[in-house]
């Protein structure tokens, strides 16, 4: 496929049956948003502010090509036993993306069950915080994926793949999970669709995300602890692959990120691209054009690809991914794959990954389990290589500060994963011209992280 597959037929206009039209509020945006009694530090966002710049398209090559490659990245580096299943999956996905019935069903679930569309929220106090002494500064918006059912963006992909699995006649679902958010999303959709659900989770991760383990079991999933390797996400992924190799004929593997063998990176991206599509519409409604800067945390890379994908061809839009620097990238205890990794093959895809001198995959570290993956989606590797997206990293400490800060400034407790993106605003915002529109993907809420936070924060 030379062009990326879109689940929404671009020829179908967004009619009134879709959430965006129903809930769009075209009221005037000249309302002044400020704390009563306090002077206005920064001007409020105005609709149609700024010139409507002509969108230039940039050719970035096939995303992916027929073999599932994004440039030199991607591919299908898996045992032969899985190759037929991957072909089947690819054909099914291609077929269903043109199937109006499937799209209607998916739209309906995203709307009525997941609660889409998620708001694009102007973070007034966060914006004020980044406002400079001379009154200039960027405007920061949060794309509220934390408000989705189950509290993160993960559900978008889980729902899409569960529906796909049903169409394939598969009754048994397996998944890997790090933080537990993807595991919870998968267990949720399996409960909703009556599918058997087995989640693989590293024994170490099960300890630090006990609440999510309980949730998965409550939802009817079997959670299997993985004791091999480093007992974390990469090992859970390996174990899920082993299960799939063994049960491929009856089982669908709901991979949780834009990693793994083709067609997963493309398919997972497409199920999440609704984030970016909604953002484009909402941005147009709120201020008349596309955002200037998109910021998202990157573990495997699914929430970031979900936001970025829509805008990859808009040269004017800056794409910024933020990885976990753990104890600092010099410390060797981090998960900053794109910054410190080398190209190799992990779990089916050629991509940047963290490895030692011998080519063994090393255990990454991050305070946030969801970013604690030594690989990264191949499309991110590609976007980095061609210079289309920029990738930075922030430490555990910086993420914890941001975790506290958003809670205090906006009354939103973000996931520790999301906190990494938020922390990067400290470095980013001072450099941005006045009125720059920044959309940060608020990929999840932080209720699941309070046990971890308690150990680190003095409140």
């Amino acid at each position: 496929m030379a062009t990326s597959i879109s689940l929404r037929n671009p020829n179908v206009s967004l009619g009134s049956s879709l959430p965006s039209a129903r809930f769009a509020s075209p009221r005037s945006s000249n309302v002044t948003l400020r704390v009563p009694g306090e002077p206005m530090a920064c001007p409020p966002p105005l609709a149609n502010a700024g010139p409507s710049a002509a969108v230039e398209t940039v050719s970035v090559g096939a995303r992916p090509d027929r073999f599932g490659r994004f440039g030199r990245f991607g591919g299908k580096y898996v045992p032969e036993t899985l190759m037929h299943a991957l072909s089947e999956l690819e054909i099914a996905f291609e077929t269903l993306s043109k199937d109006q019935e499937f799209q209607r069903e998916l739209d309906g679930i995203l709307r009525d069950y997941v609660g889409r569309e998620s708001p694009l929220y102007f973070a007034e106090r966060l914006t004020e915080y980044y406002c400079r002494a001379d009154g200039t500064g960027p405007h920061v918006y949060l794309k509220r994926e934390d408000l989705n059912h189950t509290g993160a963006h993960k559900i978008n992909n889980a729902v899409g793949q569960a529906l796909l699995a049903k169409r394939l006649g598969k009754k048994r679902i397996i998944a890997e999970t790090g933080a537990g958010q993807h595991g919870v999303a998968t267990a949720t959709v399996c409960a909703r669709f009556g599918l058997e659900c087995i989640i693989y989770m590293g024994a170490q991760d099960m300890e630090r995300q006990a609440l999510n383990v309980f949730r998965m079991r409550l939802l009817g999933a079997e959670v299997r602890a993985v004791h091999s390797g480093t007992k974390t996400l990469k090992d859970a992924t390996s174990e899920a692959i082993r299960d799939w190799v063994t049960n491929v004929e009856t089982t669908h593997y709901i991979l949780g990120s834009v990693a793994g063998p083709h067609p997963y990176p493309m398919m997972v991206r497409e199920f999440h691209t609704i984030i970016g599509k909604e953002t484009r519409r909402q941005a147009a409604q709120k201020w008349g054009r596309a955002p200037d800067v998109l910021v998202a945390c990157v573990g495997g890379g699914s929430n970031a690809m979900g936001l970025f994908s829509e805008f990859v061809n808009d040269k004017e839009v800056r794409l910024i991914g933020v990885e976990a620097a753990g104890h600092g990238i010099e410390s060797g205890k981090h998960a900053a794959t794109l910054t410190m990794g080398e190209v190799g093959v992990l779990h089916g895809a050629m991509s940047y990954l963290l490895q030692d001198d011998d080519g063994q995959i090393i255990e990454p570290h991050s305070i946030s389990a969801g970013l604690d993956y030594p690989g990264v989606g191949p499309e991110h590797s590609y976007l980095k290589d061609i210079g289309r997206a920029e990738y930075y990293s922030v430490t555990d400490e910086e993420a914890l500060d941001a975790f506290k800060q958003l809670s205090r400034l906006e009354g939103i407790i973000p996931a520790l994963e999301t906190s990494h993106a938020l922390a990067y605003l400290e470095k980013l915002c001072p450099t941005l011209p006045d009125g720059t529109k920044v959309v940060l993907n608020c990929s999840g809420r932080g209720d699941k992280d309070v046990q971890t936070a308690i150990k680190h924060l003095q409140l």
Partner: protein
Amino acid sequence: MAFALTSAFYGLPSKRASVCALSHLPSLVALIPFITAGDPDLTTTSKALKVLDSCGSDLIELGMPYSDPFLDGPVIQSACMRALAKGTNFDSVISMLREVVPELSCPIALFTYYNPILKRGVERFMTIIRDIGIHGSLVVPDVPLEETETLRSEASRHGIELVLLTTPTTPTERMKAIAEASEGFIYLVSSVGVTGARASVNPHVQSLLQDIRKATSKPVAVGFGISKPEHVQQIAEWGADGVIVGSAMVRLLGESTSPEEGLKELETFTKSLKAALP
């Protein structure tokens, strides 16, 4: 013509069949043990290779320990973890092989996942293994047919044969393309699953062997799950050219009370398998 079309479909240039290693071996049905390098330690691995050789193995597959062996079941996974914990790495395995290969009468095939090859660079990897006398085969389980172009051209430039795997889930047309592209022999994975001993052999193997026979005259070796003399005998009767026994061997070596004990058990076991073969 059909093979050329099929190869083209998978993005590969069509190739003529290469010389098949197994057909040069003295045995009617080759015994191919597999062990993991470095478990319990490299000294024992070196001795084990000699034991296996002296018991009449026709080819020995040596597995490089890897951090994320996702085609391997619990036995080989544990072996990898133990070997890595002992500090086994590519360089130490190569040093061990450099010493022992000249003393062996049977060839060694290397089994490794792809990332450690990429780390060194494909060309450099091939040069290193050829220089220590690995003239046999290379098996890389996480590189399917579509992705093998670089590996195959470098392997062939260095006189190393890249063995490809076919499985019960592989559709017939694809199996034919794999058979055509595979060098040395064709590795038929006996069951839908990861490595690990099984109680009995998948009866489907018989018809799979027949299907492969229709497609090619290259030798076929069957692996995964084979752990008893009865299995080996059955597979030989069904017409395989070789039998690969992995986890059963690895368990004996890695989980015994001492390396010496493990080597003794390995010898007894290997002899029993050899005796079951024609």
